[in-house]
């Protein structure tokens, strides 16, 4: 079925362009060769009302399904207006150069397809081919925006009907890519299909207000208004901190006070606030390490200052800049020497790489990855460790934003190699890693039938990689195994994967961050910091 779909079919007036079938999915390695995925659930009538899901029946972006032709035309015109803005300096100086270069210079060689985990793990569904999505946008630009485009459309292969079906499905396609940029690494031209997907998301958000609620209303808007996308207010934060301080004492026997709002501290540590709710042990572990290492550090209780999340990175530039600027202003107000970004990949990229062009002038405060800070602590002997306490099989997941997009590869490895005697790499790893499958905001999208797509297609590659990191004997003996995922979003995705594939019960695979492993082997801390249970 998928083989028959061509780029110009995108405008077809059908209920569903592609029907997902679990039978098309590639088999998993040992001990999951017999694993069978259930059929993809249909979206409940009440949830799909008024929404277009005609691409593949999966709902994660609320694309409207207009009832009248007039409304459809109005929306298509609005889309075209947005597309023109995407090509102007004043509206899109932020990414105009990379975008133009990627639009203009694809030679349609399909090299990128082999690198894309979504294309591969869907059983090579044509609609998920990286080039498929980009070609739609490219053809619309050529035919409907470039001068003389309609005349040359047939010759240049830009023949495409621009109707609401095309636009609606393009929006959905932009949310079938994790923005992992693995494809871009292999493109002989340097074209970036991940960037193109993000530009499409941006157009829909900044012009038409079409964006998943988890990223916008419940994401950046909530964060800017209440302080965090988790909804934690500064007051609630203090309650959580109190609980965590008690928890540290209970688990480790240490009395640790977490410093907040200390003006002029050397380090402002900034966490993904998801950790406060889902993985408080990660926050606690950072506090234990930093305190015992004697660092002069602090956290912020200022609105937005305690949440490094910046979902703007995944869908638009305005919210992206607003959130990162808030982080910058807080750092400046506190007069800290540097900001250290804790275990969160997209926050690393937003604060350090994107922030490089937003934290300008007097808010240009230095920023550093926590892996670098942790490496210094461990290698300089500021804390004492006993690697024997971590004597179980450990593998490491590389968050795309930290590795592929920022080149931070070795510090976390040097730490893990020092403290985990049974560490082994995934294949491939480092800068050539595979995304966890929850990238670009997917990890927090729990609505409708999207999680089953997320688990079985983008997540399948990571799960296969995790399985591949351990030996048959380790599976057969039932020994506890640890996937170190030093990123909040990746951790959420890996938790969901292990739950979906029943991997803790079946295969004794657990996940967690890097700092938990460090504290687990610190000799000044009571043994057993890692609790072997899935949560």
């Amino acid at each position, binding site marked *: 079925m998928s083989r028959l779909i*061509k*780029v110009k079919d995108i405008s077809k007036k059908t209920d569903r362009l592609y029907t997902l079938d679990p039978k098309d999915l590639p088999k998993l390695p040992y001990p999951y060769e017999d694993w069978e995925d259930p059929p993809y659930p249909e979206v409940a009538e009440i949830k799909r009302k008024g929404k277009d899901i005609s691409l593949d029946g999966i709902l994660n972006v609320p694309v409207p399904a207009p009832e009248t032709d007039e409304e459809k035309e109005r929306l298509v015109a609005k889309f075209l207006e*947005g597309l023109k803005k995407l090509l102007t300096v004043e*509206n899109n*100086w932020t*990414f*105009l*150069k*990379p975008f133009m*270069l*990627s639009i*203009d*210079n694809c*030679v*349609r*060689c*399909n*090299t990128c397809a082999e690198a894309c985990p979504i294309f591969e793990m869907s059983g090579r569904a044509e609609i998920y081919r990286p*080039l498929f999505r980009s070609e739609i946008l490219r053809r619309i630009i050529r035919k409907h925006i470039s001068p003389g485009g309609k005349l040359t459309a047939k*010759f240049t*292969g830009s023949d495409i009907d621009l109707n609401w079906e095309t636009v609606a499905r393009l929006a959905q396609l932009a949310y079938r890519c994790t923005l992992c*940029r693995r494809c*871009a690494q*292999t*493109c*002989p*031209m*340097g*074209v*970036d299909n991940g*960037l193109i997907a993000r530009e499409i998301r941006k157009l829909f*958000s*900044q012009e038409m207000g079409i964006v998943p609620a988890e990223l*916008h209303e419940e994401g950046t*808007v909530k964060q800017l208004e209440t302080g965090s996308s988790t909804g934690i207010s500064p007051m609630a934060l203090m309650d959580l901190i109190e609980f965590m301080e008690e928890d540290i004492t209970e688990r480790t026997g240490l009395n640790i006070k977490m410093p907040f709002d200390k003006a002029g501290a050397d380090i402002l540590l900034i966490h993904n606030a998801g950790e406060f709710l889902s993985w408080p042990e990660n926050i606690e572990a950072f506090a234990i390490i930093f305190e015992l290492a004697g660092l002069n550090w602090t956290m912020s209780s200022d609105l937005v200052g305690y949440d490094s999340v910046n979902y703007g990175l995944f869908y638009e*530039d*305005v919210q992206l*800049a*607003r959130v990162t*600027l808030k982080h910058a202003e807080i750092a400046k107000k506190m007069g800290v020497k540097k900001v250290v970004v804790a275990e969160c990949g997209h926050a690393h990229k937003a604060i*350090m*790489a994107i922030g490089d*062009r*937003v934290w*300008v002038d007097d808010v*240009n405060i*230095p920023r*550093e*990855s926590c892996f*670098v800070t942790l490496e*210094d602590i461990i290698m300089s002997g500021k804390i004492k460790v006993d690697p024997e306490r971590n004597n179980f099989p450990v593998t490491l997941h590389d968050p795309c934003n930290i590795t*592929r*997009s*920022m*080149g931070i*590869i*070795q510090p976390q490895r040097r730490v893990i190699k020092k403290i985990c005697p049974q560490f082994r790499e995934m294949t491939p790893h*480092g*800068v*050539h890693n595979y995304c966890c499958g929850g990238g670009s905001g997917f990890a927090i999208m729990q609505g409708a039938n999207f999680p089953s797509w997320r688990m079985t297609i983008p997540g399948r590659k990571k799960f296969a990689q995790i399985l591949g990191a351990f030996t048959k004997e380790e599976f057969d003996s039932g020994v506890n195994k640890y996937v170190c995922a030093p990123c909040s979003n990746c951790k959420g995705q890996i938790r969901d994967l292990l739950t979906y594939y029943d991997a803790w019960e079946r295969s004794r695979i657990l996940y967690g961050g890097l700092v938990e492993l460090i504290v687990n082997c610190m000799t000044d801390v009571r043994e057993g910091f890692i609790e072997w249970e899935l949560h």
Partner: protein
Amino acid sequence: MLIQWVTYVSILIAIVAMIAKALRYMTAPQNFRWELYPVPHERGKAEYGGSYLEELDWWSKPRHSDLFNEVKEMMMEIFLLKGVFHHNKKVWLFSLPFHLGLYICIGWLFLLLLGGIMEAAGSAVVVDAGTFGALVHYLTVISGYVGLILAGYGALGLFFWRALDSNQKAYNSFAEYFNLLFFDVVVVITLAFHFGSDPSFAVLRGYVRSLVTFSPTAIPNVLFTLEIVTMSLLIMYIPLTRMSHFVAKYFLYHAVRWSDTPNERGSKIEKRIMELLQKKVGWSASHIQTGKPWSEVVKEMKK
């Protein structure tokens, strides 16, 4: 002189189109950072894809750029198509000879130009014309045939790959087939004329001499006319199409993929950003203050 005019105009259009293309990217505004690792100028780290961000207090340390490795990487990309070799061997088998053939053909055209200028200045370009004249003669002959045959073979292979590969078929445009065939048509005509009537390219050099001296020249036959016209049109056509991707590729690599220069206080980057922040935002979603400058829009969310 009509035929010479075809060549003059073609070359002129090619130069203008190429400059316009480069200017389009050169004048594009400062963008957000979007580099992609491995970045080859990261000294000691490029091999595994590392960056200076791996260093403690990186902003306080001097950054060492490994220019040698960057140039080496560029050369491997240009002359060996390293990326295609690693990720798409099937294409590499044809793309490499095609590209090498083109580079050699460009060298051949310059040798013809050099020979034309030498002849116009009174020195001969033949076997027994002294060391330099003979060298130019031999290099012209060798580069001409090697370049044309390699480019012709590569273009033909790429044509069949596009036409027969099941992954590929749905994504080819008519233009892609046309471009490859155009190359082959020029190659076949050129080889046919020179194998038959001008094996040493002396007639072609005479034509180039006439271009350099703005003087008329004898056109031996229709095949030669066809050679000149199709080759001129090809020279003009390349920069108007995606085939001139080498210009863009430079920017894709240097201005995006490998562009990791951090913004420092008082730097040029900062100055450019400050200016761009004054541009007015035209986006019209409800959370954006349409018409206000970026500097204001990013400070507060529209309720």
